[in-house]
């Protein structure tokens, strides 16, 4: 038996291809949406992976350092380091800010990292160009997504930094590229005020009789000194020794240091389940809406195509064509339209949309496979209306009268 659907498509291939292309762009957007969600999850995961930490020690009862502000003293790491099972402990600060560069500015997440080297928690694990930070001040390693170049000078708040190294896929959970600078500099950038504000603060302190008491020499200077230094970091990243259970080590830290400690799985839950949950829901809603729109379009197109063939269907029924053959004709055309749309959508999502999206778009083969199955299912469901119309056609219509 010949394929009636195939012959019809070949006969009016232009109509099918152009309709399929229109549908394909819609499917491309749908796939890109799924890719954006995957990219957000991947960004969150890469942030955890690249930090090199097994545990995140943060301010008590906060979801820091990524989902909520967290502030702990910068000497706590010493005590944590002495807890059994802790291999390494390193302070870290995170600050999302706008960075000025020669050609405009870029939004980045500035990470303050402790002196050390690759392998120290918080450090970029690898570079694609240049070198790691070797000086105590004013050097930076940037993610290449920031478009910063080696040797380029950037301004963070009051200071200029020279980009000495470039790394890749070091991004925040929002997808902002990261810039690594020495911890001391980062603490200053995070908390240090501008000169006018410092001057105003000193003046206020000096005018406060509680701080500027006669007969207590050195009190005012001590208070002013404490106001202009920052002993805080956002978190301590901990690497656990081999053979130790991270949860048990975390429990020790919680017990002895009275801080909140998250394991990797808990931090992943915070990032994926809380930080990007709203965005993920929005994307899911877009996926649902786009799927409904696609279904409606396919249903409308197939219904219109079927109505255009009512007389032929009546003739086919009159000359003894089985209902299953007519159902097959309509359903195969619907699926063919969906497949054309899927191929166009996959190509456009991969080659056109993903590269130009400002966010990381991760198109996973499994998502494409699910998308393909969804398209086929949607096309089958969408053809039901047209099939019902075709089955209602009275073969007597071919005879007329």
């Amino acid at each position, binding site marked *: *038996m*010949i394929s*009636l659907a195939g*012959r*019809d498509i*070949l*006969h*009016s291939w232009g109509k099918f291809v152009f309709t399929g292309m229109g549908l394909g762009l819609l499917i491309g957007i749908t796939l890109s949406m799924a890719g954006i969600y995957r990219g957000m999850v991947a960004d969150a995961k890469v942030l955890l992976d690249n930090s090199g930490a097994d545990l995140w020690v943060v301010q008590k009862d906060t979801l820091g350092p990524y989902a909520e502000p967290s502030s702990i003293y910068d000497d706590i790491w010493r005590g944590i380091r002495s807890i059994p099972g802790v291999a390494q402990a390193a302070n870290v600060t995170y600050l999302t800010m706008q960075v000025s560069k020669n050609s405009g500015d870029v939004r980045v997440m500035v990470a303050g990292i402790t002196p050390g080297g690759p392998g120290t928690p918080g450090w970029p694990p690898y570079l694609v160009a240049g070198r790691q930070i070797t000086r105590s001040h004013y050097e930076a390693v940037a993610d290449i997504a920031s478009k910063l170049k080696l040797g380029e000078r950037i301004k963070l708040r009051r200071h200029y930094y020279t980009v000495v190294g470039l790394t890749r896929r070091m991004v925040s959970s929002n997808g902002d590229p990261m810039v690594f600078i020495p911890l001391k500099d980062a603490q200053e950038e995070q908390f240090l005020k501008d000169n006018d504000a410092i001057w105003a603060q000193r003046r206020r302190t000096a005018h406060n009789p509680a701080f500027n008491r006669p007969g207590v020499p050195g009190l005012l200077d001590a208070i002013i000194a404490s106001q202009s230094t920052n002993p805080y970091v956002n978190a301590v990243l901990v690497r656990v020794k081999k053979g130790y259970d991270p949860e048990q080590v975390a429990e020790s830290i919680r017990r002895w240091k009275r801080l909140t400690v998250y394991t990797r799985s808990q931090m992943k839950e915070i990032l994926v389940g809380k930080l990007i949950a709203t965005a993920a829901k929005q994307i899911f809603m877009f996926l649902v809406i786009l799927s409904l729109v696609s279904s409606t379009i396919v249903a409308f197109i197939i219904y219109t195509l079927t109505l255009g063939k009512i*007389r*032929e269907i009546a*003739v*086919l*029924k*009159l*000359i*003894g*064509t*089985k209902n299953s*053959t007519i159902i097959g004709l309509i359903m195969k055309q619907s699926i063919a339209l969906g497949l054309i749309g899927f191929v166009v959508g996959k190509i456009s999502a991969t080659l056109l949309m993903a590269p130009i999206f400002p966010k990381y778009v991760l198109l996973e083969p499994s998502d494409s496979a699910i998308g393909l199955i969804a398209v086929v299912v949607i096309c089958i469901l969408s053809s039901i209306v047209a099939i019902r119309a075709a089955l209602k056609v*009275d*073969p*007597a219509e*071919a*005879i*007329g*009268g």
Partner: protein
Amino acid sequence: MSGKGIQIMGLRKRYGSGDTAVDALKKVDMHVAPGEVVGLIGPSGSGKTTLLKCLGAVIEPTAGKMILGDEVIYDDGWKVKDLRALRRDKIGFVFQAPYLIPFLDVTDNVALLPMLAGIPNAEARKRARELLKALDVEHRAKAMPSQLSGGEQQRVAIARGLINCPPVILADEPTAPLDSERALAVIRILNDMAKKLETAIIVVTHDEKIIPTFRRIYHIRDGVTYEEAGEGRNIE
């Protein structure tokens, strides 16, 4: 007369019930022998189309008897389970307009019926080409319907009606859209093929050009048929 062909006895068709009931067919008696072409003539509303639909197993008569070949297909109720297969295998249709499938070429339009009946594509196409040759349209075998003239389309439609060698062919105004010359050519073809394939052909028509060609004519008026001898004018 042979027992084959088609015999219709006391066929009735009533639409609706009670006060609104309409008797579209009151008493239809017909017999068309194999190889014979008869005309069915009647004014609008006389019941021609209803009769054609009953004969084509598209609607169910109310009472009567129909014998197709040696098989009783209706006797106060359908005696055949699969009416679709009956239409496919035992009844050929030729319509006023050719109604060819626009996305199939001429050969496949004709070969579609045997293909639907499960005959292999190659065999069905071979039969189609033989028939197209007999109808003098073999040279358009690969053409699409939209590339054919009206006469060629109607010949292809006749080939489609004949391809399964059905015992009966129902032709509904097959010459209506054609000029005199082409209309007579179509009737000539129907006569030739009826003899060649031993098929009974019923031609429903208003066409004055072709009425004189029938040897027998059934008139239908108010749902009742009357037989009349035709002129049987030679159209060789």
